[in-house]
Each structure stands twice: as structure tokens, then as C-alpha cells.
């Protein structure tokens, strides 16, 4: 099989990459190992993600499918009197703010919709597991090898391999293609989650009390829960804590989740008086990492495949969609011959991707390290800039005054003037003890297998 672009992974990064490449006249082959529809976490979108979907012409379909329409995020803090609301916003052509909505997405349905669109738009879908890369005559990445459902091996030769494999970080795990994969600052965290029926929903008639909003319950540093409506009856719930805390409780993941839903915050208990779980309880440990050198001749990673920080601001799908969008014209130029002889033809795009996520990292780190300062910046000093940040507008008009403020508080500088300072994983720069790398061939094969050992 031969094609211009082969995409590894049929989730939002892969499907959106295909859709944006269709607009450039390219029809990638998509390789996906799981039959769809399939369960997946990462259910809340930002304004920027909603904008990408609208730009793809999907707004009507999103409404037609009745995905809950998120108006904002309400955060319940430690003190009883405190809750914060961050609205979903857009910026018009004059850069004026306007109230907007976006969506909460049951990923089995959302990912299925996107993948169907990609196939409908002309991309061939190959069901199988990629097992390795092919090398062209120059020794560069020149395609992938796929193990098919019947056990046979299929070679797909391509000018470009797009790794959209999500938390599996496939290319990084192969070794010999990308740079090293570093543990992220939140790698000691673990997320335990499921879905419930019968939760009490907001319904006060205002944007702030809209029943489809995300609710966040913050107990203390590194200990919080999400509440994300998926339809009129079902809510996705998750608890995020240090792994050590979970392990010392010595509970099954189900018992742990049910107990935390009752104990983590009174406002959460009020909304879920009895935990009626309608989905398995899933776990994701060690979800935070950064792959360096994630692009080069013949390959590029998009979305979770190269980096993930923390779920609390719901940026995962946003970053996947925006990176896919930004990559498409760059890929088109590459296929037309641009920068073919450079060591990394995608260096500029790679840097822009890292700079964007670095912004999220600085905001996230300040949120955990100095939450009171964070609240003052968000709700008093830099409200508009923070509205942009939460909306996911991180690739334009940055660094903003808010970002300068966070970096001043963290005493952190970001210079991108050389390889040594170029987006060094904060986890390893400020905590050298974290520098050890996750190794290719690590024992942790899957989250469920990991859970089985405990």
C-alpha cells in the first residue's frame, strides 16, 4: 500500500488531521486498532475546540446529536462560600469577547462521528495495530507496518507518518524515532472514573447554573473531582488524586470511587447522594509526560501522542484538534517539497506546539502551587486574558500579561533560543529526580493490567 500520509490512530487527533488534510487535497490512510464505537475519556471541550468543529462544518451535527451544550465551568473550592464560574467565550473578527457554548462529548459517539466523516471524505480506514515503521532509501521514516486482524502483516509506504495514537504514544515507545519521553510534573497522579445515573443537575436558568456545565470539586492540592454531563441522565465523574493516596486506601477502584464521591466535597455528595454507576470504573495512572523531538523527516506526532499535562482544564481534545488544524498546511507544504533536506522540516510547527502547551503548563502549575494567587489573577487582575486561556486561545496573542504574571509568580522563564532551553520538560528541569525516562518496553502495558497488580 502506498499513500502520501498515513495516520496512526482514529481518535480526534487522527480524524481531525484527516479532515484538515482533505481540505489540502490529501487523502490520508487511517490505521485504527479498535473497532468503533469504543469508550474513551476526555469528554469536555473548550471554546477553541468548539470553534474547530464549527470550522469543520460540524456545528449543526453536534446540536442535532444533542451533545450537552457547555456554557462554562463551575469550580467549588475549599471554603463553603466559594464557587467560581468561568464562562465559555469566543472572540469575534474584531477580537471582541462574546458568550459562546461548546459541547460535552460521550467519546464513543463523538469519535465515531469524526472517524465516519474522515472515511466519508475519502480516507481509507485500515483496522490493525501498527507494529513498526518502514524506512525509505534515505533511512528516513517512510511508512508503517501493520498487523491486520487476520494476523497478516501489511506495509503502508508513506511520505509522512502522523502519530495520533494518544496516551499510547506509539512512536515514542518504538525508540529510535522521536527523542526521549520524559515523565511530566503530574505523573504521580492517577485518575479513577466512571459514569453515573440520577445525579442532581444545576438548573437555575442562567449560564452559570446551566445543567450541561462542567463542575469541578477541589478538596485540596492534587485532590479533586470532575462532573461532566453526557446526556440528560448520565454524568461522567472522575476523581484525580496522588497514586500513593489511592494505594494506601487499599480499596478496589470501584469502592474507592464510590467512597470519594461521597467524601471529597459536600457539594459533590449533594449532587450524587447514591452512586448509581452505569459504566465500568477505569483508571489511568502516570498520565503526564512529554516527548521531545516529536517530529522529523517523515514523521510528526499530534495531540496526546507527544504530550499530556493534566485533565483539570479539559485541554486534551482541544490541543489535539488545534494541532491537527495547524499542522495541515505545514504538511501540505512538506509534501510539495518544502524543507525536505532539513534535519527537521517541521521544527517551526513543533516549536509552536510546545510553546502552546508550555503556556498551559505554566497556568496549571500556578493553579496547583499558588491557588489563591491563581484566583486573584483569574477573577480580578487578568480576567479577560484568563478567559482566553481557558477558552483554549493559546496559540495567538501570547505571552499575555496574565502569562507574564504566572511566570513571575513561579519565577520561571521560558526562552526558546537554543536546544538546551527549548521547552525543557519542567518536571525534569525543576525536579531533576524526575528526569529518568519512561523506557520503551516498560512493564506497564495497559492501565487495566497495572490495576490488576494492585
Amino acid at each position, binding site marked *: 500500500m502506498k499513500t502520501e500520509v498515513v495516520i496512526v490512530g482514529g481518535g480526534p487527533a487522527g480524524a481531525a488531521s484527516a479532515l484538515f488534510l482533505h481540505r489540502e487535497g490529501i487523502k490520508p490512510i487511517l490505521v485504527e486498532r479498535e473497532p468503533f464505537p469504543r469508550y474513551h475519556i476526555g469528554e469536555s471541550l473548550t471554546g477553541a475546540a468548539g470553534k474547530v468543529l464549527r470550522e469543520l462544518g460540524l456545528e449543526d451535527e453536534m446540536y442535532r446529536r444533542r451533545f450537552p451544550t457547555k456554557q462554562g465551568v463551575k469550580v467549588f*473550592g475549599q471554603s463553603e462560600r*466559594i464557587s467560581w464560574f468561568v464562562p465559555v467565550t469566543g472572540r469575534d473578527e474584531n477580537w471582541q469577547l462574546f458568550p459562546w457554548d461548546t459541547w460535552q462529548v460521550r467519546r464513543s459517539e463523538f469519535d465515531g462521528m469524526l472517524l465516519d466523516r474522515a472515511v466519508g471524505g475519502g480516507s481509507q480506514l485500515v483496522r490493525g495495530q501498527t507494529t513498526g515503521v518502514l524506512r525509505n532509501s534515505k533511512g528516513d521514516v517512510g511508512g508503517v507496518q501493520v498487523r491486520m486482524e487476520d494476523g497478516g502483516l501489511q506495509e503502508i509506504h508513506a511520505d509522512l507518518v502522523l502519530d495520533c495514537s494518544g496516551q499510547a504514544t506509539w512512536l515514542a515507545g518504538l525508540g529510535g524515532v522521536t527523542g526521549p519521553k520524559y515523565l511530566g510534573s503530574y505523573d504521580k497522579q492517577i485518575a479513577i472514573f466512571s459514569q453515573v445515573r440520577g445525579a442532581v443537575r444545576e438548573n437555575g436558568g442562567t449560564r452559570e447554573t446551566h445543567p450541561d456545565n462542567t463542575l469541578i470539586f477541589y478538596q485540596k492540592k492534587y485532590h479533586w473531582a470532575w462532573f461532566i454531563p453526557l446526556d440528560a441522565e448520565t454524568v461522567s465523574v472522575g476523581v484525580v488524586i496522588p497514586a500513593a493516596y489511592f494505594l494506601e486506601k487499599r480499596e478496589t477502584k470501584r469502592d474507592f470511587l464510590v467512597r470519594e464521591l461521597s467524601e471529597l466535597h459536600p457539594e459533590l455528595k449533594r449532587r450524587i447522594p447514591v452512586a448509581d454507576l452505569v459504566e465500568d470504573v477505569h483508571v489511568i495512572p502516570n498520565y503526564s509526560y512529554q516527548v521531545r523531538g516529536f517530529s522529523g523527516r517523515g514523521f510528526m506526532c499530534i495531540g496526546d501522542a507527544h504530550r499530556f499535562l493534566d485533565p483539570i482544564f479539559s485541554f486534551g481534545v482541544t490541543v489535539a484538534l488545534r494541532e491537527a488544524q495547524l499542522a495541515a498546511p505545514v504538511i501540505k507544504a512538506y509534501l510539495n517539497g518544502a524543507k525536505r533536506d532539513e534535519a527537521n522540516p517541521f521544527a517551526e510547527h513543533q516549536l509552536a506546539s510546545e510553546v502552546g502547551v508550555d503556556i498551559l503548563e505554566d497556568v496549571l502549575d500556578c493553579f496547583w502551587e499558588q491557588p489563591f494567587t*491563581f484566583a486573584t489573577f483569574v477573577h*480580578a*487582575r487578568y480576567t479577560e486574558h484568563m478567559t482566553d486561556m481557558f477558552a483554549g486561545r493559546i496559540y495567538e496573542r501570547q505571552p499575555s500579561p496574565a502569562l507574564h504574571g504566572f511566570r513571575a509568580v513561579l519565577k520561571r522563564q521560558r526562552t526558546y533560543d537554543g536546544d538546551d532551553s527549548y521547552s525543557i520538560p519542567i518536571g525534569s528541569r525543576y525536579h531533576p529526580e524526575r528526569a529518568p525516562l519512561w523506557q520503551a518496553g516498560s512493564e506497564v502495558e495497559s492501565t487495566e493490567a497495572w490495576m490488576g497488580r494492585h
Partner: protein
Amino acid sequence: MDTQSAIADFITKELAIGRAKELHPDDDLLATGVLDSLGLMQLVLFIEEHLGVKVPDEDVVIENFRSVSALTAYLARLDGRQNESEGAAA
């Protein structure tokens, strides 16, 4: 009203409602629950609007706001820094 009294007055009237009847300058505002994230924000706004002092971003940290005396001392240092730089500029 001097700075320390103005701050103590504001905290007693606006933040410590129903809590500390008597506010001592060295009371740990965080530990006693008088200061929460909303309270810090209100205090920063009070300092900006009523004392006319802009607290630089990197100083908006809980350590400078832990007690009335800590805050008063911080503002005195800030005043000194700002006078120094104005003096240097002049």
C-alpha cells in the same frame, strides 16, 4: 488611619465576618480560616483601590498576606522599593 489599622479594619469588617471578633496583628489568617481565595482577592483589591498601591504579580502570594503584620511589613518594603526606583529614575 495608618496602613496596619486600615488593613485590620477591612479584614474585620469584610473578611472575618462571624469569625474573629478580635483580630491580632500576628494571627495566621490562613490557619484561622479568615483568609480564603476569595478573601485574598478582596484584600488585593482593597490595597489597590484604597491604599493606592499596585502589588506586583510576583508578590501576590499567600506568604505576604498571612497576617496583618506580615502584610503591613510587606507593604512597607514595597514602598521602599518603589521610592528607591523613583529616586534612581530622578
